[in-house]
């Protein structure tokens, strides 16, 4: 961002428009297909939740059994929605920040189709009973090498753009974006190699899987969310990032601590004693980067309260950042050895933490980024602020409910599991009311995302509003139900400052 002063605002705007145009097809493809996978994942999640409450639900079909549907639900959430939303946002952010048009949009788009095809094959494989049974790596083994190749084809151009950037300070968004682009293949490649292709001790494979699970959250989803939040907050408010050095503390503490976390999930297993303890300590310490990132982005967003109240981008991003802070603090709270770790280890708490990370923290920031990026790519404004509000409120209700019910209910559940003087059934009974509430909350989330997907699809078809005015959430534009109308031809540079 620091080099943009060299040019006039008009030249800047022309360059931005050119970058947006070059990336229109791949980024819109990632967003739209990601949103479609999110809807698929939510349907599977609702079926899986319903089966936790009423096991006889849909028990006639083998491919809809709990083990397969739940595995499909998480896999599609992570690889269908999460990764694709991240790819779209990251390649757009890095192109904008390195001030270069994308020169390989065709290849990225093709690789994106390959990715989608193999996510679909993987989901069919899971439902057909060929899942691997490794959490978050459930797709059949043959899918993983293809996904890694598709990833390389998507990400390599962004790395090249970063490599040939003009000199100057690297903005913190680029730190996070490039780091997550490097950490993702490291974490995924290591796990796939050590678990599926190098025959090793099965126990260490379980430890690697636990490390991978944590790595995907803390080394991919969290830095992606941080990258987008650090871009959007100053971009929308027009104010600089509050206490910039704090953002670098956030980055380096995440980079140093993130890779150690994860193996506390194997506490009590016969693996070297120090691994679970280091994992637990690192997970507690990951509170530091989440506080640092969360505080500096939130302060930046709150620097302009009027925009904060009206911008959909800021509303979603702020919600995601708050979830990030909660994730950091909750991670410390549920991973304390010899107090909370043993009651969270095997209970539904783990699921709540996953949803808090992937849906609460990561997805909300991605929604914020999508609400910012899509009007620039499609040259249309969002159709309806009501749809945006509905998406926000129902998603927020849903994710608060799912995460808090599963995390807190999981602790109750875990206490029941620990109480060996009672039967296992009694532990399951303790979790039951929480599972019923989780099912209802997922329905809220699905409802909200149905509207989000339809809204995005209309934008992709360029059926958005032809206006020079952004779609804002406040009550400022009472003359029209959807926001102020405007003639696109009047929209010269500097005609409106908002959004």
């Amino acid at each position, binding site marked *: 961002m620091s080099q943009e002063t060299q040019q006039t605002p008009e030249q800047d705007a022309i360059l931005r428009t050119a970058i947006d145009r070059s990336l229109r097809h791949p980024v819109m493809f990632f967003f739209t297909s990601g949103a479609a996978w999110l809807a698929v994942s939510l349907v599977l999640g609702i079926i899986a939740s319903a089966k936790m409450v009423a096991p006889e639900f849909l028990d006639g079909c083998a491919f809809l059994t709990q083990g397969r549907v739940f595995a499909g639900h998480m896999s599609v959430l992570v690889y269908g929605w999460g990764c694709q939303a991240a790819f779209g946002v990251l390649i757009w952010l890095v192109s904008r920040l390195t001030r270069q048009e994308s020169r390989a949009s065709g290849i990225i788009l093709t690789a994106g189709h390959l990715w989608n095809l193999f996510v679909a094959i993987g989901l069919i494989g899971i439902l057909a009973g060929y899942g691997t049974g490794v959490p978050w790596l459930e797709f059949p083994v043959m899918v993983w090498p293809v996904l890694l190749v598709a990833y390389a084809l998507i990400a390599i151009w962004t790395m090249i753009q970063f490599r040939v950037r003009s000199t100057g300070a690297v903005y913190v968004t680029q730190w996070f974006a490039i780091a997550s682009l490097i950490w993702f293949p490291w974490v995924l490649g290591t796990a796939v190699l050590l678990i599926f292709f190098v025959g090793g001790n099965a126990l260490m494979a379980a430890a690697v899987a636990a490390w991978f699970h944590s790595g995907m959250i803390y080394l991919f989803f969290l830095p992606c969310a941080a990258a987008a939040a650090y871009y959007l907050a*100053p971009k929308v408010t*027009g104010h600089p*990032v509050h206490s910039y050095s704090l953002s670098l503390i956030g980055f380096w503490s995440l980079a140093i601590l993130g890779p150690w976390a994860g193996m506390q999930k194997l506490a009590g297993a016969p693996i070297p*004693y120090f691994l679970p303890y280091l994992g637990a300590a*690192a997970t*507690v310490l990951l509170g530091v980067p989440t506080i*640092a990132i969360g505080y500096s982005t939130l302060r930046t967003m709150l620097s302009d309260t009027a925009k904060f109240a009206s911008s959909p981008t800021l509303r979603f991003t702020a919600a995601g950042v708050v979830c990030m802070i909660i994730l950091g603090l909750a991670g410390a709270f549920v991973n304390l050895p010899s107090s909370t770790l043993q009651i969270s280890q095997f209970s539904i708490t783990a699921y709540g933490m996953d949803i808090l990370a992937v849906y609460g923290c990561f997805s909300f920031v991605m929604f914020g980024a999508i609400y910012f990026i899509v009007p620039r790519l499609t*040259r249309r404004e969002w159709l309806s602020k009501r749809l945006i509000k509905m998406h926000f409120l129902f998603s927020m209700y849903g994710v608060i409910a799912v995460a808090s019910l599963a995390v807190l209910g999981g602790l109750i559940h875990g206490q029941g599991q620990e109480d060996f003087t009672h039967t296992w059934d009694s532990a399951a009974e303790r979790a039951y009311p929480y599972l019923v509430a989780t099912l209802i909350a997922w329905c809220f989330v699905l409802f909200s995302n149905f509207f989000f997907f339809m809204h995005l699809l209309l934008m992709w078809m360029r059926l958005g509003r032809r206006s020079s005015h952004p779609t804002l959430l406040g009550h400022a534009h009472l003359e029209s139900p959807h926001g102020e109308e405007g003639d696109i031809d009047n*929209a010269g540079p500097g005609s409106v400052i*908002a959004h």
Partner: protein
Amino acid sequence: MSHSSPTNNSTRPDLDESINVTIAHNPSLITPAAAREFSNPGVDKSPLSLATFSLCAVMLIIGGAVLGNTEGSLFSYTNFVKPNYVRGKAPGVTDDAVMPPKAIVDVYVKKGQSLYSAKCNGCHGADAKGDGANFPSLVGSAWVTGPSERFSQVIMNGLQGPTSTGKVYGAGIMPAQGGGMSPQDLAFVMTFVRNSFGNTVGDVITPEMAQAAMDISAKRAKAGSAVTAEELKEHEKDLPGEKMDPATLIDPITLKVVEAKK
């Protein structure tokens, strides 16, 4: 550096040469959304707030406590598999509330079952009836249900040639099964086979008896080779050691005898 926005053109002359009016108002070159973006918010160097600093310090202290709580045993490799592991009591459970004691024969049969599945199932089958051609049945076998020393030597060393019925089975030789077994394991599996599948000897092979069986096995003249029907005649007696009442109550986890409550 701070806060320059697209409208903030006051430093430039009105008709800057770089502004081409046709370009600037051509929506195909500049989208409205791109035009209204802020370019360069600059850098803020506010100091770290005390609240953030304190909150981070709290996280560091908790993290340190997690590591410190290991009492210097973080890299101790003896700590992750504890000998004679006995599970701690659940919170709020008093000393009186222990697992309900069970009869020793029931506990031993249950533990022996898993050893049988690992060691014997492959040949003698899940129902211990063998297959009639290659592997003999253990149900009602005189050597299984007879004197315990003879049975123990077959398990410890394997068997060559005819079995208790005089028949020579297709497999010809049973390999020794004693390798890797502790006296406790041998006691479990012997008690299990003698009291299951319709065998009703009703006695318990104690770990002391099993230890004696291992000592006898080690002192054999032809130690290491499978026993034969001829050699087994020497072992036609019960293993030495104090016999236990099969109804004796023991703790199913610690395996210690529980004193009857007064």
